[in-house]
């Protein structure tokens, strides 16, 4: 959740989050029979809030009853009468099909993520405020720590992020790379290791000792990055970033130079472990 966002749980079931530019109403994972009543009891408060956009997060729920849909439909009508925009996210394909059948698809307006809802409502899109936007970088740091500690079993210490100098070459022999692709900005992330660190991490993770980076071991760089990216993506999605799923590519070579086709230079997130040091390079194009 954005630091500027206020989150309030009205009951044990429904959650409302006031973000700087929108209201997010999140349905619970399990919907009780009386859920529509607790939902309706909050309508008045929600409608009075001075936001232009309201987004209903269906939380990929399969058990949305007619009562709940009718209640939400009434809320949407009331919001529309006050010239407010409504969209829905995390809607299952089944529910989307049902909304089409009952001719409510345009009222609920299911979209892939918050930024598409923002765009449709004429609001500006969320993107990193700068190359060193802590809100954007933090999920990657946390996901790296969690992944390495849980999957590899190694404690790591995150260093202070810094900008990569122009033409600066770091000690890299293998890197997993994913391109960041979303409507609001382009960029790329690389998880970079020197050979010794990578082989130490591989040995700890898989239990096999190798003395050089071969075809057999190199996909580990892509898989570790994949797990990191999956976690960071989930956190960033809740902040409004619509990052797509991507398959990482792995680059290898002696003293590799990871370059990005972005106008700005990369930010380096350094990490220290008992198995050696490694880093993540993140570059985003904000133009």
């Amino acid at each position, binding site marked *: 959740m954005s630091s500027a966002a206020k989150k309030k749980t009205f009951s044990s079931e429904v959650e409302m989050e006031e973000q700087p530019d929108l209201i997010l109403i999140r349905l619970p994972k399990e919907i009780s029979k009386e859920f529509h009543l607790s939902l309706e009891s909050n309508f008045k408060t929600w409608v009075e809030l001075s936001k232009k956009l309201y987004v209903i997060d269906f939380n990929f729920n399969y058990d949305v009853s007619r009562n709940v849909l009718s209640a939400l439909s009434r809320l949407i009508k009331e919001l529309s009468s006050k010239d407010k925009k409504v969209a829905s996210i995390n809607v299952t394909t089944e529910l989307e099909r049902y909304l089409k059948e009952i001719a409510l698809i345009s009222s609920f307006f299911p979209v892939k993520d918050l930024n598409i809802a923002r765009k449709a409502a004429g609001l500006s899109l969320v993107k990193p405020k700068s190359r060193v936007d802590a809100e954007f970088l933090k999920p990657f740091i946390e996901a790296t720590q969690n992944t390495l500690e849980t999957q590899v079993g190694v404690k790591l210490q995150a260093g202070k992020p810094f900008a990569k100098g122009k033409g600066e070459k770091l000690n890299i022999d293998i890197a997993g790379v994913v391109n960041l692709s979303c409507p609001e900005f382009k960029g790329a992330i690389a998880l970079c290791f020197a050979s010794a660190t990578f082989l130490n991490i591989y040995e700890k*993770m898989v239990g096999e000792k190798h003395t050089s980076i071969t075809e057999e071991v190199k996909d580990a760089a892509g898989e570790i990055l*994949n797990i990191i990216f999956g976690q960071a993506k989930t956190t960033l999605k809740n902040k409004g970033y619509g990052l797509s799923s991507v398959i990482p590519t792995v680059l290898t070579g002696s003293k590799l130079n990871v370059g990005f086709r972005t106008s700005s230079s990369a930010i380096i997130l350094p990490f220290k472990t008992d198995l050696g040091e490694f880093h993540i390079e993140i570059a985003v194009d904000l133009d």
Partner: protein
Amino acid sequence: MFAPGTRVLVVDDMTTMRKVVMRSCKELGLAPMFEAADGNQAWNVLNEKSGEIDLIISDWNMPNCTGLEFLKRVRADARFKALPFVLLTAESEASQVKEALLAGVDNYVIKPFSTAVLGQKLGQVHKKLSA
């Protein structure tokens, strides 16, 4: 927990993850005997080794045939309908796990995971199926 020597089919497109899962299985006393790189390969292995596989641990996101597609194929076949099936998912896919539960998956494990967590999840499956 599953009995020592329980024969496991491990499915993942990443060699490293297959090795990680197989290593965890061994640490848990299981016998990871078969492996496949996607749902299609896994389906072939399952058919060839029918009767020799006691448990499937499969990744979700794979090319050609995903873990979910493989699960649906397994559950649609009377021979494998009751075969314990555990899915590995990235955190970003966790929200779609209900689809897998509806398709008949017995449990799921979110990556990253430790051997202890895998063991715990397998224990839940065994308990459920033995009840």
